Protein backbone atom coordinates (compact mmCIF):
# COMPACT_ATOMS: atom_id res chain seq x y z
CA UNK A 1 0.00 0.00 0.00
CA UNK A 2 1.48 3.35 -1.02
CA UNK A 3 1.47 6.37 1.25
CA UNK A 4 -0.50 9.41 0.17
CA UNK A 5 1.94 11.78 -1.53
CA UNK A 6 -0.35 14.14 -3.45
CA UNK A 7 -3.52 16.23 -3.20
CA UNK A 8 -6.41 16.63 -5.62
CA UNK A 9 -8.24 19.77 -4.57
CA UNK A 10 -11.49 19.49 -6.48
CA UNK A 11 -13.28 16.45 -7.96
CA UNK A 12 -13.27 18.06 -11.44
CA UNK A 13 -9.50 18.55 -11.44
CA UNK A 14 -7.36 16.81 -14.07
CA UNK A 15 -4.10 17.41 -12.19
CA UNK A 16 -2.85 16.47 -8.71
CA UNK A 17 -0.32 18.49 -6.69
CA UNK A 18 2.48 16.28 -5.36
CA UNK A 19 3.62 16.91 -1.78
CA UNK A 20 7.12 15.43 -2.15
CA UNK A 21 9.45 14.91 -5.11
CA UNK A 22 8.27 11.88 -7.09
CA UNK A 23 10.69 9.67 -9.05
CA UNK A 24 9.96 8.42 -12.53
CA UNK A 25 7.99 5.18 -12.22
CA UNK A 26 6.78 5.89 -8.68
CA UNK A 27 3.07 5.96 -7.93
CA UNK A 28 1.33 9.23 -7.17
CA UNK A 29 -1.37 8.58 -4.54
CA UNK A 30 -3.99 11.00 -3.19
CA UNK A 31 -7.18 10.22 -1.24
CA UNK A 32 -8.35 7.39 -3.41
CA UNK A 33 -6.03 4.57 -4.64
CA UNK A 34 -4.75 3.33 -7.02
CA UNK A 35 -3.32 6.69 -8.19
CA UNK A 36 -1.20 7.19 -11.30
CA UNK A 37 2.36 6.20 -12.22
CA UNK A 38 4.71 9.15 -12.80
CA UNK A 39 6.08 9.08 -16.38
CA UNK A 40 8.88 11.46 -15.41
CA UNK A 41 10.26 13.00 -12.20
CA UNK A 42 7.80 15.46 -10.58
CA UNK A 43 9.36 18.08 -8.25
CA UNK A 44 7.67 18.69 -4.88
CA UNK A 45 4.71 21.04 -5.15
CA UNK A 46 4.37 20.54 -8.90
CA UNK A 47 1.47 19.07 -10.83
CA UNK A 48 0.96 15.69 -12.48
CA UNK A 49 -1.69 14.86 -15.10
CA UNK A 50 -4.48 12.51 -14.00
CA UNK A 51 -6.06 12.19 -17.45
CA UNK A 52 -4.95 12.55 -21.03
CA UNK A 53 -5.21 16.22 -21.91
CA UNK A 54 -5.37 17.26 -25.58
CA UNK A 55 -3.85 20.52 -26.83
CA UNK A 56 -6.06 23.56 -26.04
CA UNK A 57 -7.99 21.61 -23.41
CA UNK A 58 -8.21 23.30 -19.99
CA UNK A 59 -6.02 22.28 -17.07
CA UNK A 60 -8.34 22.21 -14.05
CA UNK A 61 -7.20 22.87 -10.47
CA UNK A 62 -9.48 24.19 -7.69
CA UNK A 63 -12.17 23.04 -10.14
CA UNK A 64 -11.21 26.06 -12.27
CA UNK A 65 -9.13 26.44 -15.42
CA UNK A 66 -5.57 27.54 -14.64
CA UNK A 67 -4.49 27.44 -18.30
CA UNK A 68 -4.67 25.18 -21.35
CA UNK A 69 -2.45 22.38 -22.61
CA UNK A 70 0.05 23.65 -25.19
CA UNK A 71 0.85 20.08 -26.32
CA UNK A 72 -0.65 16.62 -25.75
CA UNK A 73 -0.27 15.59 -22.10
CA UNK A 74 -0.37 11.92 -21.08
CA UNK A 75 -1.47 10.50 -17.74
CA UNK A 76 1.43 10.71 -15.26
CA UNK A 77 3.28 13.52 -17.03
CA UNK A 78 4.59 16.64 -15.30
CA UNK A 79 2.32 19.64 -15.98
CA UNK A 80 4.08 23.00 -15.84
CA UNK A 81 5.04 25.99 -17.98
CA UNK A 82 6.48 23.74 -20.73
CA UNK A 83 3.08 22.22 -21.57
CA UNK A 84 0.62 24.64 -19.92
CA UNK A 85 -0.12 28.08 -21.32
CA UNK A 86 -1.67 30.60 -18.97
CA UNK A 87 -4.04 33.28 -20.15
CA UNK A 88 -2.68 36.46 -21.67
CA UNK A 89 -2.53 39.37 -19.31
Amino acid sequence: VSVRNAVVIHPDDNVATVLVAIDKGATVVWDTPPGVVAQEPIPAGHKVALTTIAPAQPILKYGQPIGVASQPIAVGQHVHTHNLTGQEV
Partner: protein
Amino acid sequence: VRNHVVVLSSVSCANGVVDGIGREVSGVKAVTHIEGCGRGFTDVALATRTLVGVLRHPNVYGALAVGLGCEVIKAAGLVQQAADCGKPLEFLEIQETGGTLRSIATGAGIVRPMVAAAAGQAREAADFEELMLAMECGGSDSLSGLTANPCIGKVSDWLVGQGGRVIMSEITEFIGAEAKVAAHCDSPDVRERMMALLADQRRRVKDSLGPLAHLVIAPGNAEGGLSSIEEKSMGSFAKAGSTMIRQVVEYAERPTARGLVVMNTPGSDVFSMTGKIAAGAQILLFSTGRGSPAGSPLVPVVKIASNTRLFERMPDDMDFDAGRAVAGCSLDELGAELRDLVVEVANGRPTKPELTRTELFAINSTSEPF
Protein backbone atom coordinates in the same frame (compact mmCIF):
# COMPACT_ATOMS: atom_id res chain seq x y z
CA VAL B 1 -3.55 45.31 20.30
CA ARG B 2 -0.24 47.17 20.66
CA ASN B 3 0.58 50.55 22.16
CA HIS B 4 3.60 51.88 20.30
CA VAL B 5 5.26 55.27 20.47
CA VAL B 6 6.22 56.17 16.90
CA VAL B 7 8.73 58.58 15.42
CA LEU B 8 7.70 59.21 11.82
CA SER B 9 9.45 60.94 8.90
CA SER B 10 7.21 63.31 6.97
CA VAL B 11 9.82 63.27 4.19
CA SER B 12 12.83 61.04 3.45
CA CYS B 13 15.21 63.92 4.32
CA ALA B 14 14.18 63.41 7.97
CA ASN B 15 15.14 59.71 8.06
CA GLY B 16 18.54 60.34 9.67
CA VAL B 17 16.96 62.19 12.58
CA VAL B 18 14.16 59.62 12.95
CA ASP B 19 16.66 56.75 13.02
CA GLY B 20 18.81 58.75 15.46
CA ILE B 21 15.89 59.18 17.86
CA GLY B 22 15.14 55.46 17.44
CA ARG B 23 18.69 54.64 18.57
CA GLU B 24 18.58 57.17 21.40
CA VAL B 25 15.29 56.13 23.02
CA SER B 26 14.58 52.48 23.66
CA GLY B 27 11.00 51.41 23.10
CA VAL B 28 10.13 53.77 20.24
CA LYS B 29 9.37 52.66 16.71
CA ALA B 30 11.27 54.68 14.11
CA VAL B 31 9.26 54.70 10.88
CA THR B 32 11.08 55.95 7.80
CA HIS B 33 10.30 55.83 4.07
CA ILE B 34 11.66 57.19 0.81
CA GLU B 35 8.81 59.54 -0.15
CA GLY B 36 9.21 63.26 -0.30
CA CYS B 37 9.05 66.03 -2.83
CA GLY B 38 8.94 65.65 -6.61
CA ARG B 39 5.65 63.78 -6.65
CA GLY B 40 2.40 64.54 -8.45
CA PHE B 41 -0.83 65.46 -6.66
CA THR B 42 -2.11 61.88 -6.63
CA ASP B 43 0.99 60.53 -4.96
CA VAL B 44 1.25 63.40 -2.48
CA ALA B 45 -2.35 62.69 -1.44
CA LEU B 46 -1.61 58.97 -1.21
CA ALA B 47 1.53 59.46 0.90
CA THR B 48 -0.24 62.00 3.14
CA ARG B 49 -3.17 59.62 3.70
CA THR B 50 -0.71 56.84 4.57
CA LEU B 51 1.29 58.95 7.04
CA VAL B 52 -1.82 60.36 8.71
CA GLY B 53 -3.06 56.76 8.94
CA VAL B 54 0.10 55.84 10.84
CA LEU B 55 -0.47 58.65 13.36
CA ARG B 56 -4.14 57.68 13.80
CA HIS B 57 -3.37 53.95 13.98
CA PRO B 58 -5.07 52.14 16.90
CA ASN B 59 -1.75 50.43 17.77
CA VAL B 60 -0.09 53.82 18.22
CA TYR B 61 -0.20 55.47 21.67
CA GLY B 62 1.44 58.68 20.56
CA ALA B 63 3.87 59.93 17.95
CA LEU B 64 6.41 62.51 16.92
CA ALA B 65 6.36 63.52 13.24
CA VAL B 66 9.71 64.82 12.02
CA GLY B 67 9.94 67.08 8.98
CA LEU B 68 12.80 68.95 7.36
CA GLY B 69 11.05 72.30 6.95
CA CYS B 70 10.92 72.96 3.21
CA GLU B 71 9.06 69.78 2.13
CA VAL B 72 5.64 69.34 0.51
CA ILE B 73 4.20 67.05 3.19
CA LYS B 74 4.73 68.98 6.43
CA ALA B 75 5.07 67.25 9.79
CA ALA B 76 2.78 69.88 11.36
CA GLY B 77 0.13 69.21 8.71
CA LEU B 78 0.19 65.47 9.39
CA VAL B 79 -0.25 66.06 13.13
CA GLN B 80 -3.05 68.55 12.47
CA GLN B 81 -4.94 66.08 10.25
CA ALA B 82 -4.71 63.39 12.94
CA ALA B 83 -5.38 65.73 15.89
CA ASP B 84 -9.03 64.77 16.34
CA CYS B 85 -8.06 61.28 17.50
CA GLY B 86 -7.01 62.85 20.80
CA LYS B 87 -3.69 61.14 21.35
CA PRO B 88 -0.31 62.74 22.14
CA LEU B 89 1.03 63.92 18.77
CA GLU B 90 3.97 66.29 18.37
CA PHE B 91 6.09 67.51 15.48
CA LEU B 92 9.46 69.13 14.91
CA GLU B 93 11.30 70.53 11.91
CA ILE B 94 15.01 69.96 11.48
CA GLN B 95 15.78 73.30 9.82
CA GLU B 96 13.93 75.17 12.57
CA THR B 97 15.48 73.10 15.39
CA GLY B 98 19.06 73.71 14.27
CA GLY B 99 20.16 70.61 12.44
CA THR B 100 20.42 66.88 12.84
CA LEU B 101 22.04 66.41 16.24
CA ARG B 102 19.93 69.06 17.98
CA SER B 103 16.80 67.58 16.40
CA ILE B 104 17.72 64.10 17.65
CA ALA B 105 18.21 65.49 21.16
CA THR B 106 15.01 67.56 21.06
CA GLY B 107 13.01 64.68 19.56
CA ALA B 108 14.31 62.21 22.13
CA GLY B 109 13.21 64.63 24.84
CA ILE B 110 9.70 64.72 23.34
CA VAL B 111 9.19 60.96 23.01
CA ARG B 112 10.79 59.79 26.30
CA PRO B 113 7.78 60.87 28.41
CA MET B 114 5.42 59.30 25.83
CA VAL B 115 7.21 55.95 26.18
CA ALA B 116 6.91 56.15 29.96
CA ALA B 117 3.21 57.05 29.79
CA ALA B 118 2.44 54.30 27.27
CA ALA B 119 4.20 51.72 29.43
CA GLY B 120 2.06 52.77 32.39
CA GLN B 121 -1.22 51.98 30.62
CA ALA B 122 -3.08 48.77 31.43
CA ARG B 123 -4.43 46.54 28.64
CA GLU B 124 -8.21 46.88 28.20
CA ALA B 125 -10.66 44.29 26.95
CA ALA B 126 -12.32 44.99 23.60
CA ASP B 127 -14.90 43.27 21.40
CA PHE B 128 -13.86 41.40 18.28
CA GLU B 129 -15.99 43.75 16.21
CA GLU B 130 -13.35 46.40 16.90
CA LEU B 131 -10.66 44.23 15.36
CA MET B 132 -9.44 44.81 11.80
CA LEU B 133 -7.26 42.12 10.24
CA ALA B 134 -5.30 42.36 7.01
CA MET B 135 -4.32 39.44 4.80
CA GLU B 136 -1.26 39.13 2.62
CA CYS B 137 0.61 36.46 0.76
CA GLY B 138 4.23 36.66 -0.29
CA GLY B 139 6.63 34.14 -1.72
CA SER B 140 3.78 31.75 -2.56
CA ASP B 141 4.25 28.15 -3.58
CA SER B 142 1.78 25.64 -4.96
CA LEU B 143 0.70 24.67 -1.44
CA SER B 144 -0.18 28.25 -0.40
CA GLY B 145 -3.57 27.90 -2.04
CA LEU B 146 -4.20 24.50 -0.45
CA THR B 147 -3.09 25.09 3.11
CA ALA B 148 -2.16 28.57 4.38
CA ASN B 149 -4.59 30.68 2.33
CA PRO B 150 -7.76 28.65 2.99
CA CYS B 151 -6.71 28.52 6.63
CA ILE B 152 -6.57 32.35 6.64
CA GLY B 153 -9.96 32.27 4.87
CA LYS B 154 -11.39 30.40 7.88
CA VAL B 155 -10.11 33.10 10.26
CA SER B 156 -11.56 35.77 7.97
CA ASP B 157 -14.95 34.01 7.99
CA TRP B 158 -14.82 33.91 11.80
CA LEU B 159 -13.99 37.61 12.26
CA VAL B 160 -16.56 38.70 9.67
CA GLY B 161 -19.11 36.62 11.65
CA GLN B 162 -18.08 38.54 14.79
CA GLY B 163 -18.80 41.86 13.09
CA GLY B 164 -15.12 42.75 12.53
CA ARG B 165 -13.30 43.88 9.40
CA VAL B 166 -10.88 42.01 7.16
CA ILE B 167 -8.90 43.66 4.35
CA MET B 168 -7.44 41.76 1.45
CA SER B 169 -5.59 43.44 -1.42
CA GLU B 170 -2.86 42.69 -3.97
CA ILE B 171 -4.98 43.22 -7.08
CA THR B 172 -2.21 41.74 -9.26
CA GLU B 173 -2.96 38.42 -7.63
CA PHE B 174 -6.61 38.54 -8.66
CA ILE B 175 -5.68 38.55 -12.36
CA GLY B 176 -6.99 35.38 -13.96
CA ALA B 177 -9.48 34.71 -11.16
CA GLU B 178 -11.99 37.33 -12.41
CA ALA B 179 -14.99 35.00 -12.50
CA LYS B 180 -14.41 33.87 -8.94
CA VAL B 181 -13.79 37.42 -7.73
CA ALA B 182 -16.95 38.68 -9.47
CA ALA B 183 -18.99 35.93 -7.80
CA HIS B 184 -17.68 37.12 -4.43
CA CYS B 185 -18.88 40.72 -4.83
CA ASP B 186 -21.75 41.77 -2.60
CA SER B 187 -23.39 44.30 -4.94
CA PRO B 188 -23.25 45.44 -8.57
CA ASP B 189 -21.45 48.57 -7.36
CA VAL B 190 -18.69 46.60 -5.67
CA ARG B 191 -18.43 44.29 -8.69
CA GLU B 192 -18.09 47.18 -11.11
CA ARG B 193 -15.39 48.83 -9.00
CA MET B 194 -13.57 45.52 -8.52
CA MET B 195 -13.56 44.69 -12.24
CA ALA B 196 -12.36 48.20 -13.11
CA LEU B 197 -9.44 47.83 -10.71
CA LEU B 198 -8.60 44.44 -12.17
CA ALA B 199 -8.71 45.70 -15.76
CA ASP B 200 -6.48 48.62 -14.77
CA GLN B 201 -4.00 46.35 -13.02
CA ARG B 202 -3.89 44.03 -16.05
CA ARG B 203 -3.08 46.99 -18.27
CA ARG B 204 -0.31 48.17 -15.95
CA VAL B 205 1.25 44.71 -15.78
CA LYS B 206 1.08 44.47 -19.56
CA ASP B 207 2.57 47.93 -20.05
CA SER B 208 5.54 47.11 -17.85
CA LEU B 209 6.20 43.51 -18.89
CA GLY B 210 4.92 43.40 -22.48
CA PRO B 211 4.84 39.89 -23.95
CA LEU B 212 6.19 38.45 -20.69
CA ALA B 213 3.18 39.73 -18.73
CA HIS B 214 1.80 36.25 -18.13
CA LEU B 215 5.02 35.52 -16.23
CA VAL B 216 4.12 38.10 -13.55
CA ILE B 217 4.53 35.24 -11.11
CA ALA B 218 7.99 35.53 -9.50
CA PRO B 219 10.71 32.99 -10.46
CA GLY B 220 10.39 31.35 -7.05
CA ASN B 221 6.67 30.81 -7.62
CA ALA B 222 7.35 28.85 -10.81
CA GLU B 223 10.11 26.77 -9.18
CA GLY B 224 7.61 25.96 -6.45
CA GLY B 225 5.25 24.53 -9.07
CA LEU B 226 2.96 27.43 -10.00
CA SER B 227 2.56 27.43 -13.77
CA SER B 228 0.36 30.45 -14.51
CA ILE B 229 -0.95 33.71 -13.06
CA GLU B 230 -4.44 32.20 -12.81
CA GLU B 231 -3.10 29.28 -10.78
CA LYS B 232 -1.39 31.69 -8.42
CA SER B 233 -4.49 33.91 -8.26
CA MET B 234 -6.89 31.07 -7.54
CA GLY B 235 -4.67 30.08 -4.63
CA SER B 236 -4.30 33.65 -3.44
CA PHE B 237 -8.03 34.27 -3.52
CA ALA B 238 -8.60 31.33 -1.16
CA LYS B 239 -7.80 33.89 1.59
CA ALA B 240 -11.20 35.48 0.93
CA GLY B 241 -12.93 32.57 2.66
CA SER B 242 -16.63 32.23 2.05
CA THR B 243 -17.96 35.73 2.76
CA MET B 244 -18.73 38.43 0.23
CA ILE B 245 -16.70 41.55 -0.60
CA ARG B 246 -18.60 44.47 0.96
CA GLN B 247 -16.49 47.42 -0.11
CA VAL B 248 -13.56 48.37 -2.32
CA VAL B 249 -11.26 51.04 -0.89
CA GLU B 250 -8.27 53.00 -2.15
CA TYR B 251 -4.71 52.56 -0.86
CA ALA B 252 -4.54 53.44 2.87
CA GLU B 253 -8.26 54.35 2.96
CA ARG B 254 -10.06 53.21 6.10
CA PRO B 255 -13.03 50.92 5.30
CA THR B 256 -16.45 52.12 6.48
CA ALA B 257 -18.16 48.78 5.85
CA ARG B 258 -17.80 45.80 8.14
CA GLY B 259 -16.89 42.39 6.79
CA LEU B 260 -14.55 41.57 3.92
CA VAL B 261 -13.07 44.58 2.14
CA VAL B 262 -10.68 44.78 -0.83
CA MET B 263 -8.02 47.49 -1.01
CA ASN B 264 -6.35 48.67 -4.21
CA THR B 265 -2.69 47.77 -3.65
CA PRO B 266 0.00 46.20 -5.78
CA GLY B 267 1.06 42.61 -5.09
CA SER B 268 4.49 43.75 -3.93
CA ASP B 269 4.44 42.87 -0.24
CA VAL B 270 5.79 45.81 1.70
CA PHE B 271 3.81 48.42 -0.27
CA SER B 272 0.71 46.29 0.08
CA MET B 273 1.14 45.66 3.82
CA THR B 274 1.73 49.36 4.48
CA GLY B 275 -1.50 50.39 2.73
CA LYS B 276 -3.63 48.03 4.79
CA ILE B 277 -1.86 48.94 8.03
CA ALA B 278 -2.26 52.67 7.35
CA ALA B 279 -6.00 52.02 6.92
CA GLY B 280 -6.06 50.81 10.52
CA ALA B 281 -5.51 47.03 10.32
CA GLN B 282 -4.20 45.96 13.74
CA ILE B 283 -2.88 42.49 12.90
CA LEU B 284 -1.70 41.13 9.56
CA LEU B 285 -1.94 37.46 8.56
CA PHE B 286 0.82 36.64 6.08
CA SER B 287 1.00 33.33 4.24
CA THR B 288 4.23 32.23 2.62
CA GLY B 289 5.45 29.12 0.91
CA ARG B 290 9.01 30.06 0.02
CA GLY B 291 9.65 31.88 3.31
CA SER B 292 9.19 35.65 3.61
CA PRO B 293 10.42 37.19 6.90
CA ALA B 294 8.55 40.51 6.38
CA GLY B 295 7.08 42.27 9.40
CA SER B 296 5.92 45.77 10.32
CA PRO B 297 6.97 48.40 12.87
CA LEU B 298 3.30 49.06 13.68
CA VAL B 299 1.45 45.75 13.82
CA PRO B 300 2.14 42.13 14.68
CA VAL B 301 2.48 40.11 11.47
CA VAL B 302 1.57 36.43 11.89
CA LYS B 303 3.71 34.35 9.53
CA ILE B 304 1.88 31.30 8.24
CA ALA B 305 3.95 28.63 6.50
CA SER B 306 2.16 26.79 3.69
CA ASN B 307 4.36 23.73 4.17
CA THR B 308 5.88 21.99 7.16
CA ARG B 309 9.36 21.93 5.61
CA LEU B 310 9.45 25.75 5.60
CA PHE B 311 8.09 25.91 9.16
CA GLU B 312 10.95 23.68 10.29
CA ARG B 313 13.64 25.34 8.15
CA MET B 314 12.90 28.97 9.19
CA PRO B 315 11.72 28.57 12.80
CA ASP B 316 12.70 32.13 13.77
CA ASP B 317 10.44 33.59 11.09
CA MET B 318 7.38 31.33 11.03
CA ASP B 319 4.53 31.47 13.57
CA PHE B 320 2.16 28.81 12.26
CA ASP B 321 2.46 25.56 10.29
CA ALA B 322 -0.48 25.33 7.89
CA GLY B 323 1.35 22.55 6.01
CA ARG B 324 -0.34 20.13 8.37
CA ALA B 325 -3.44 20.52 6.19
CA VAL B 326 -1.94 18.00 3.76
CA ALA B 327 -0.88 15.64 6.56
CA GLY B 328 -4.33 14.84 7.88
CA CYS B 329 -5.35 17.97 9.85
CA SER B 330 -8.62 19.42 8.61
CA LEU B 331 -8.79 23.06 7.50
CA ASP B 332 -11.50 23.61 10.13
CA GLU B 333 -9.18 22.41 12.91
CA LEU B 334 -6.25 24.45 11.62
CA GLY B 335 -8.45 27.51 11.07
CA ALA B 336 -9.63 27.29 14.70
CA GLU B 337 -6.03 26.94 15.88
CA LEU B 338 -4.95 29.95 13.83
CA ARG B 339 -7.90 31.96 15.18
CA ASP B 340 -6.79 31.13 18.75
CA LEU B 341 -3.26 32.28 17.88
CA VAL B 342 -4.65 35.55 16.46
CA VAL B 343 -6.55 36.12 19.72
CA GLU B 344 -3.36 35.50 21.73
CA VAL B 345 -1.45 37.90 19.47
CA ALA B 346 -4.20 40.50 19.95
CA ASN B 347 -3.70 40.03 23.69
CA GLY B 348 0.01 40.74 23.44
CA ARG B 349 1.82 37.57 22.39
CA PRO B 350 4.68 38.69 20.11
CA THR B 351 4.90 37.29 16.58
CA LYS B 352 8.19 36.17 14.98
CA PRO B 353 8.76 39.38 12.97
CA GLU B 354 8.29 41.37 16.20
CA LEU B 355 10.93 39.18 17.88
CA THR B 356 13.40 39.48 14.98
CA ARG B 357 12.54 43.20 14.60
CA THR B 358 11.89 42.79 10.90
CA GLU B 359 10.08 46.10 10.56
CA LEU B 360 9.37 47.06 6.95
CA PHE B 361 7.44 50.10 5.74
CA ALA B 362 7.11 51.47 2.20
CA ILE B 363 4.51 53.79 0.70
CA ASN B 364 3.08 53.01 -2.73
CA SER B 365 3.23 55.53 -5.56
CA THR B 366 1.56 55.62 -8.94
CA SER B 367 4.34 57.25 -10.95
CA GLU B 368 8.03 58.09 -10.99
CA PRO B 369 9.29 61.05 -8.95
CA PHE B 370 10.24 64.09 -10.99
